[in-house]
């Protein structure tokens, strides 16, 4: 269990402001946030590279705030590998073994085991400079895992790889996690990674953690405008919410949207584009929200087509390419948008 409590650190360009975060054992925590949010410095503070200006870091309830990195048993993997170029792959993997009192034989057994686990056994005598990005990142993971770290910190580990390698290594990380049960904290820019790997997800902005939760939860219920926009949740509007007969009605620029979330006053709402049904004729359904509008914009992203409809405010609906073609939608056409009150998220 790693816990940081009220950590603040100012490095000028990058900083942390009163960050608190707990990661349970065997958890796989994903950290997302825009560039400059302080994700890397949070990892480096947990690793012990910086000592925080304020706050505490605990590992299994032991205060490790002032402990040097070498005594923490926390592993670190960077986006750009940081493999020691003057050492070959084998020497890189066993670098950390010098601080452990093990016989040569035990060390070479461990190296072999990890090299096999990560599929780099055939590269042991090569030098890092001659390897592909994917191979290099496998070696950095092996180099960190040989220490049997309590926590493995991954700073955009897949960020520098091509998409095919990224998908492969992503699966590898999942396999390694289920195999070793090492607690992982993984910084990423990719929502796919966050969903596929993370059991928890934290969103950072401006040196602060703004939301923590299960990935699907965070995606479904962003707790502020920043998270909603950062996660690309479209249809975010501001409006005045009035409660009438157990239902909240939110007035968005004249548009009256019903929501199952009861809250009055000024609120933000969001509706995920895939929750919006688009039709040429009005539909009879239990859904409380149905609006007529003109197609403003069509953006074809391949499998999904995003249609922006002006219903007083620009509203985005996502439909499949198939139904887009079936309906023969064109700019300027009149269509109906329908969505349920429970899908109107208020924050």
């Amino acid at each position, binding site marked *: 269990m790693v816990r940081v409590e009220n950590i603040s650190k100012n490095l000028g360009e990058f900083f942390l402001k009163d960050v608190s975060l707990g990661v349970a054992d065997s958890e796989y925590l994903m950290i997302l946030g825009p560039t400059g949010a302080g994700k890397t410095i949070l990892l480096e503070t947990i690793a*012990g*590279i910086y000592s925080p200006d304020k706050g505490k870091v605990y590992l299994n309830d032991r205060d490790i705030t002032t402990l040097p990195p070498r005594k923490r048993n*926390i*592993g670190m993997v960077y986006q750009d590998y*940081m493999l020691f170029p003057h050492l070959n792959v084998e020497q890189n993997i066993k*670098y950390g073994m010098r*601080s452990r009192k093990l016989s040569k034989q035990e060390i070479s057994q461990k190296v072999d085991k990890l090299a096999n686990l990560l599929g780099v056994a055939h590269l042991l005598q090569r030098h890092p400079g001659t390897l592909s990005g994917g191979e290099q990142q496998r070696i950095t993971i092996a180099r960190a895992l040989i220490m049997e770290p309590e926590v493995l910190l991954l700073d955009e580990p897949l960020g520098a790889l091509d998409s095919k390698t990224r998908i492969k290594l992503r699966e590898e990380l999942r396999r390694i996690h289920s195999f070793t049960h090492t607690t992982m904290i993984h910084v990423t820019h990719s929502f796919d990674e966050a969903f596929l790997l993370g059991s928890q997800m934290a969103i950072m902005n401006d040196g602060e953690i703004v939301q923590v939760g299960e990935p699907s939860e965070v995606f479904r219920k962003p707790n502020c405008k920043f998270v909603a926009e950062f996660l690309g949740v479209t249809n975010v509007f501001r409006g005045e919410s009035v409660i009438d007969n157990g239902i909240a009605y939110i007035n968005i620029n004249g548009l009256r949207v019903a929501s199952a979330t009861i809250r009055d006053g000024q609120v933000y709402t969001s509706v995920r584009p895939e929750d919006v049904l688009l039709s040429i004729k009005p539909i009879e359904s239990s859904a409380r929200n149905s609006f007529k509008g003109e197609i403003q914009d069509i953006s074809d992203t391949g499998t999904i087509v995003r249609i922006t409809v002006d219903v007083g405010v620009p509203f985005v609906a996502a439909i499949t390419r198939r139904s887009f073609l079936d309906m023969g939608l064109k700019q300027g056409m009149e269509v109906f948008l329908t969505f349920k009150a429970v899908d109107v998220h208020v924050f």
Partner: protein
Amino acid sequence: MFSRLREANFKIITILFGLVLAVFIVALLIGVVTHTTPQALIDSLLSGETQFAIRLSLITSVISTLFCIIVSVPAAYALARYNFRGKNILNTILDVPLALPPLVAGVALLILFGTTSFGKGLAEAGIRFVFTPLGIILAQFFVNMPFMFRVLRTTFQGINPRYEYVAQTLGSTEAGAFWRVTLPMSRNGLMAGSIITWCRGIGEFGAALMVAGSTRMQTETLPISLYLNMSCGELPLAIAAATILIVISLVSLFIFEKFSGFAHVF
């Protein structure tokens, strides 16, 4: 058509300037080497005095280069890695010997080690710099230290500190990470810096002259030998010293270029 012609002319003219300079340099060097007959040159090279100068130059320059490395490695690392109060001033001060005329550096060393109680105390303890080979080493060290320092500082700055961070998470102390990761990664810079420092040490004249004087067969390095023999008309001996210095410079330059992309440091 016309403009293209002008562009072509411009290219040719600029290249011509480069060529003229190169011809000038090569002609000068050839002029020195061919000034005496080959036989006279060989005889002079084998003479006791030239042999002494070669030996003294090699010994002093190697020792002063070693001192430059020992002192510059930690200093350059500190100024490349850490932020602290007064860092900029320290950086500037460490570069001063580079800008100082060697004669002035020599006078300053002479005053400190020859006239102050500090220098006299050292002399009484048996460490004499004035008019001794030790003074040559001191002069070379002082004048050339900034070259080593600057090459190393640039080298260390070019190495991502995250290599050391990773090494520390893998059980290394700060010093251990430096020793096992950063220093080996600086091999080329260390090599280039050593060569340039050594080469300049061999050629060091002004400061060494001030501190160690120019006593034949005692503090007679190659440049001093060149100077002494030139002033008393022993041309073949002077040419012999000059020839060796030219060869050493060319070889060093070649090795330096091979080991570094650090030419911009100077």
